[in-house]
């Protein structure tokens, strides 16, 4: 089309340092913005712990006398639950409607005037938010769980770095999914439909309600290789409880990275389409 859009092309080459500086500044402001809600963080940590107890007892009852369920032993199930409750707020499966709200109210127009691509700036802010959440929301369940349950502690030196990488990737994958769901607001009057669909699917298919290992093998495998959902939640937790051998885990994290790249590309594509459409509408 060759039309001029409101966004400036991403800077390249010698501007790499300034790009990183901008990205870092947005991320830091995202961190600070969420760090102001201290009461909410305490309330959230308490709630995560209550659900940690609930899920942990239920999964341990599923493991029952045999002591294993879906390929997890009791200690692995406990770690899966408690780390999962901690990750919930870090990855932020639910409750992000900022982009959709800005599109609806028209405030998005001011985002387009900024010299940073919207996908980049929202991602940076989200990483900052996740940084605060990993201090305020991930740590409490990780401390509470081991007090009351026997947990699985990583035994291989590769596990922790791989886990950190996997969580970082999961945050990016989840951000991209949320961005795409929110971006339907460019076309739809009412984004509640896509939002509800996302909320329902992400909870059950990402492994929050139960580890996907509880499902029949064919279903687990097709979810794992055919959808991004396990990359949100299941993969980092499987890495942490060392469910697979290290090479397989590296492969799974690689798959996660693949989803992250693919979905971020989709975000940029959707955003470009939406901007063209807005220019055509003149609105």
């Amino acid at each position, binding site marked *: 089309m060759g039309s001029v859009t409101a966004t400036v092309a991403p800077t390249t080459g010698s501007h790499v340092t300034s790009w990183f500086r901008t990205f870092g500044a947005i991320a830091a402001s995202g961190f600070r913005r969420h760090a102001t*809600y201290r*009461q*909410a963080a305490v*309330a*959230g940590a*308490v*709630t995560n712990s*209550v*659900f940690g*107890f*609930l*899920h942990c*007892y*239920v999964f341990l*009852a*599923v*493991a*029952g006398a045999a002591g294993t*369920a*879906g390929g997890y032993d009791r200690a692995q199930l406990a770690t899966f639950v408690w780390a999962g409750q901690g990750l919930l707020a870090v990855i932020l499966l639910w409750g992000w409607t900022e982009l959709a709200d800005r599109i609806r109210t028209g405030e998005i127009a001011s985002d387009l005037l900024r010299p940073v691509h919207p996908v980049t700036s929202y991602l940076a802010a989200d990483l900052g938010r996740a940084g605060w959440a990993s201090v305020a929301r991930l740590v409490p369940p990780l401390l509470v769980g081991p007090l*009351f349950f026997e947990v699985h502690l990583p035994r291989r030196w590769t596990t922790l770095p791989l886990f950190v990488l996997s969580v970082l990737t999961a945050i990016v994958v989840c951000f991209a999914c949320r961005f795409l769901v929110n971006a339907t607001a460019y076309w739809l009057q*009412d984004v*509640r*439909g896509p939002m*509800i*669909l996302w*909320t*329902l699917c992400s*909870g*059950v298919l990402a492994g929050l*309600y*139960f580890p996907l290992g*509880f*499902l*029949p093998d064919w279903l687990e495998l097709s979810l794992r290789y055919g959808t991004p959902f396990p990359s949100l939640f299941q993969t980092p937790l499987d890495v942490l409880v060392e469910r697979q051998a290290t090479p397989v885990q590296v492969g799974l994290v690689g798959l996660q990275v693949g989803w992250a790249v693919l979905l971020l590309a989709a975000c940029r594509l959707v955003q470009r389409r939406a901007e063209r459409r807005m220019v055509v509408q003149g609105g």
Partner: protein
Amino acid sequence: MLGAQARSQASYRVSFVVDLIGNVGGTVFDVVTILVLFGVTRELGGFTLREALVMVGLSAFAFATADLLVGNIERLPRYVRTGLFDAVLVRPLAALPQLLLMDLPLRKVSRAAFGLVVLLVAVGSAGIHWTPGRLALLVVAPAAGVVFFGSVFVATATVSFYWVDSGELANAVTYGGRDFTSYPITVYGGWFRALFAYGLGFAFVSYHPALALLGRADPLGLPAWVGWAAPGVALVAAALAAAAWRVGIRHYRSTGS
């Protein structure tokens, strides 16, 4: 007021249908979760799938119906924060009914109806030996569950009079209570079970009534008549919630925003 609500909410037809479907979805996945768990194990806490489904049905119906009727009280923290609650207080009507009717979420009807279906299918397939007493319990217990969950919604919402940013804290008890009552309480252990089951009273929503319906002895050793205590527990909960609400309103100071 109710008629106007119904008309206004149904006028955006597509949104309304989407909401109806979305609200059922949550409960559907709760049931799917139970089925998946029973796909891995034959019994959970000493109960079979059919027995556990009776508890799921009681819990799902009671929670969804209470959520439909008074669940909107969850918005209280936002009303307090934005100052809208002041407008409610200056009107010459009781505050609680106003809050509940201001935005009765008709979309949640679908979920309560689905809860009822789960309950009826569960008691139908559990092989219950029906007596007049058990039939009466089948009516009384779900109603008591609705009152109980309603009281929990109101009581937890009053926290926001003291602690404005407390939204998620209420979820720990309301949604936590729903999850707790979806499984036999034999699943849980130690002080956690004691706190939720008897400290907060959630054992009387589904576990004990289900035992009485099924005619099973309590593995934890309480006598069979405890299943009939549900209405009494619900009334106590309602009285406590009403008291908490009154104290909360009196304590309320506007945020001034």
